[in-house]
């Protein structure tokens, strides 16, 4: 199959992919953005005005995925638009709707749930020690993946075209990477519970006379006791508690929970429990 789009055309597709989300709206979500991004490709493919008009309308319909998913779908769509006959065009839309769900899931689990928490915690720990390297490193790592993956997906997706879909059906690539990203993400999250959340209590149990308030050998710090049993056990307890509240409310009251946690912490600090 001869491919018509030049490197310059793909670059244009990439640039229009980058601005796709600006037109996000509640009716077609990214429908307008998708049509705008693919329009120059369609212009190259269709010489007939009526056909071009039809194709543009077809791509202005409801569409939504993750930004890196958008790159793959745009590129595969571009390749399919030039390789399919007039009666196969409806297949392109079902390909789009078929891919946007799984690719959004992949993008979320790979970037939002795994990559951003990893680089965010590395960058933050450097920034806490006052080093400007923290944000710079995070910026570089974030955008190598963010921008790099987008461009690569455009080039690779276009080259593979419909083959991408066949390959994927055979090897289930999207789901396999999603599963792996999910596992890495969860282990990182497990680690973040103990490194990032700091819940410590200054409470002490005095086995001697509490009236004199003397600090002697018979004062046992509760925090030390807890640390011996399981380090960061309080962090784990708070996280699991918040998780259960969120699960009950289906994740819709995160902001409210933050405010409650804030007030609770201020109160507990006042009474010397935290």
């Amino acid at each position, binding site marked *: 199959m001869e491919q018509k789009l030049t490197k310059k055309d793909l670059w244009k597709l990439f640039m229009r992919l980058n*601005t796709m989300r*600006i037109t*996000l*709206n*509640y*009716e077609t979500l990214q*429908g*307008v953005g998708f*049509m705008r991004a693919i329009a120059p490709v*369609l212009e190259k493919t269709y010489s007939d*005005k009526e056909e071009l*008009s039809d194709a543009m*309308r077809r791509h202005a319909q409801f569409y939504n995925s993750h*930004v890196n998913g958008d790159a793959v779908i745009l590129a595969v769509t571009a390749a399919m638009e030039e390789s399919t006959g007039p009666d196969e065009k409806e297949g392109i839309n079902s390909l789009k709707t078929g891919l946007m769900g799984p690719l959004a*899931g992949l993008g*979320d689990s790979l970037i*939002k*749930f795994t990559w*951003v*928490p990893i680089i*965010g*915690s590395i*960058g*933050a720990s450097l*920034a806490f020690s*006052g*080093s*400007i390297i923290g*944000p710079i490193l995070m910026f570089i790592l974030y955008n190598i993946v963010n921008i790099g993956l987008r461009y690569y997906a455009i080039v690779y997706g276009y080259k593979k075209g419909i083959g991408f879909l066949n390959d994927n059906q055979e090897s*289930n690539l999207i789901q*396999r990477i*999603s*599963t*792996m990203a*999910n*596992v*890495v993400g*969860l*282990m990182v*999250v*497990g*680690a*973040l*519970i*103990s490194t990032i*959340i700091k819940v410590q209590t200054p409470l002490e149990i005095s086995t001697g006379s509490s009236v004199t308030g003397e600090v002697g050998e018979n004062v046992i710090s509760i925090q030390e006791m807890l640390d011996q049993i399981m*380090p960061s056990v309080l962090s784990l307890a*708070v996280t699991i508690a918040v998780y259960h509240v*969120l*699960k009950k409310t289906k*994740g819709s009251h*995160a*902001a409210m929970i*933050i405010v409650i946690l*804030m007030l609770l*912490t*201020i*109160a507990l*600090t*006042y009474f010397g429990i935290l």
Partner: protein
Amino acid sequence: MTMTIIVITLIAFILGIDDVSTKMFRRPLLIAPIIGFILGDVQAGLAIGATLEIMWMGIGNVGAYMAPDLITGTIISTSLAIMSTNGSIETAVATAITLAIPTSILAQQLLVLIQTINVSLNGWAKRLADNADVKGTFWLIYPPALLTGAARAVPTFIALYFGAGAIQSAVDALPTFVINGLETAGSIIPAVGIALLMLAMLKKFELWMFLVLGFVFSSYLGLDILPMTLIAIVFAYFYEMITRKTAAGANGANESSKNTGEEEYDL
């Protein structure tokens, strides 16, 4: 001071558009140091950025849940915190945490409004499609881009121009135990972001085991995030290999693997 406020407003405008286009700066740790640099206190910017980054970790648009607007929230809270606390980084961080929450939530409402206004773009797009006007599509992004930029810039300007004095007197009036409590809260609030991540990722019960593993590696063995990630990749590889084999064995004749994939990663 007015000049500085205008510069920050311009940055809010640019970062607002970046958030929906190139997406290069959309995390607190990348934004706060810039604000700190403009206001002449990079150290405070770094500390606030790191705290907010961790506080909002895991907060992002997941599914139908619309996230607080971290961009506006970070810009306003960092600026006001640095402007109204003279040099004390601890107080600046505590102030930023407090301000970040209401500003992010209020600013989020503006984004909802813009996505509603943007519905009118569908009519424009349809007209362009009817006329097969590819050149015209170029302009589709400019009105919504201006709107999105303004949605970040206008609240920033108002908050900075009118808010700085009020915040300063509020911070001065706050008792010490509140400031201390807020500082402690800054390291407890990340639990919400992490719980949100868990909510999105724990699709099966067996996946809890990896959470336990990660926790043990880091709390008992004291591993850093980077070595932890590398170990996680090894576990992920083998888990995927094992589950793929059992799935293939269970499905056997019927080739329904593609369908299950779609169900699992619902938008």
